[in-house]
């Protein structure tokens, strides 16, 4: 194993690699942010919408969840340009990951809201709260505690899925490392390095998530 050579190669390419890391974080961050907001809407519609709305959103959600994220990315990349929406690979990739995230978050939100006992809504009604007051003051705070762990999981899935954008030419971390590999022929050490960086990112996300979970836990 040529560890020293690997370190030298990584150091020599530190700026492109840092750029790659930056892109990975940017892609993941944007997709998670937009995807979560969209997913919140999806979850609310699935729980409280009328039959027609629920059916439509369910088809949307099931379609996205049944499709591999790789296929989703390729489909968005090719289809969007054909129908006249001119997005770069970068933007198309984020779009696909946002949709992917929204379908997963939608399921998580729906599950959490439906897990809240009906008595909570009834108690809120009995003291005269309207639907939106009930949602914000009673239901969401409880749902959030259930949503958090699974959401952290989804966030790490998005970070991992961002690697797939390398296949459509987006220079995120994986592709920038691959570019170093093509020059230095140190595939093992460098793939290891890439894997390690992803590991660190996801590890940090998980640890942060667990910290927040502890902070907002309800004393019992």
């Amino acid at each position, binding site marked *: 194993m040529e560890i020293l050579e690997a370190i030298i190669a990584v150091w020599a390419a530190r700026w492109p690699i840092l750029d790659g890391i930056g892109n990975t974080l940017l892609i993941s961050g944007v997709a998670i942010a937009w995807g979560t907001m969209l997913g919140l809407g999806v979850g609310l519609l699935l729980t409280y919408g009328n039959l027609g709305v629920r059916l439509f959103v369910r088809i949307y959600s099931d379609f996205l969840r049944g499709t591999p994220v790789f*296929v989703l990315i390729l489909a968005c990349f090719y289809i969007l340009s054909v129908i006249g929406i001119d997005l770069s690979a970068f933007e198309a990739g984020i779009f696909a990951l946002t949709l992917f995230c929204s379908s997963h978050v939608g399921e998580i939100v729906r599950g959490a809201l439906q897990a809240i006992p009906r008595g909570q809504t009834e108690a809120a009604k009995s003291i005269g709260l309207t639907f939106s007051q009930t949602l914000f003051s009673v239901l969401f705070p409880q749902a959030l505690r259930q949503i958090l762990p699974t959401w952290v999981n989804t966030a790490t899935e998005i970070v991992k899925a961002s690697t797939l954008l390398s296949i459509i030419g987006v220079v995120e971390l994986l592709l920038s490392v691959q570019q170093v590999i093509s020059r230095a022929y140190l595939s093992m050490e460098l793939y290891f390095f890439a894997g390690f960086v992803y590991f660190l990112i996801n590890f940090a996300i*998980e640890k942060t998530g667990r910290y927040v979970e502890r902070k907002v836990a309800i004393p019992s």
Partner: protein
Amino acid sequence: MDYNFNFAAVWRDFDLLMAGLGLGIFLAIISIAIGCVIGLLAAFGMLSKNRAIRVLSSAYVSAIRNTPILVLILFTFFALPQLGIRLGKIESFIATLSIYSGAYLTEVFRAGLIALPIGLREAGLTIGLTEQRTKLFITIPVMFRNVLPSLSNNFISLFKDTSLAAAIAVPELTFYARKINVETFRVIETWMVVSLMYVAACYVIAAILRRVESRLAIPR
């Protein structure tokens, strides 16, 4: 938007797509089978009295789950030859997917084992079975049936991950989709059909697994 839909272009190569789908299912089945063995070993490992084994098992799970599967695939196929381990495309992918699924299944089995009543193992010992045979004939079968729903979810996830085999040119569904895409430029039709095939396959697999679950589940 003027786009003349022409599904015939996709229809012509439908047998290729079906072959790809079949390969994908095949890859998923083999990988989850091997993954189950790995997962069981690691699950017991995480609950072992031996600290070294515990640490090793957790490290395996943590490392693999936080690493993007694409990095693992590329590592196994391109980097291992550096150590002299040269695997064919399909073997390499199966190896990767097995190790990947093993990490997720470890969590499933660990949770399943923890949920078992303590008395189960003791009952096995008192009728004269050794530790090993208790595990084999009592603990594992009971735990397995309890975790079937989780197992099914993992299998469907894994099946979707087979789409990544296309990254190393394994002739599964996504690979053929890209091929047809490049040859015919019928992007919308290709990706719609392929997406629907995955969604449909997931539905069918889920339905089959549900029947298996109800057949095998322990009556309550």
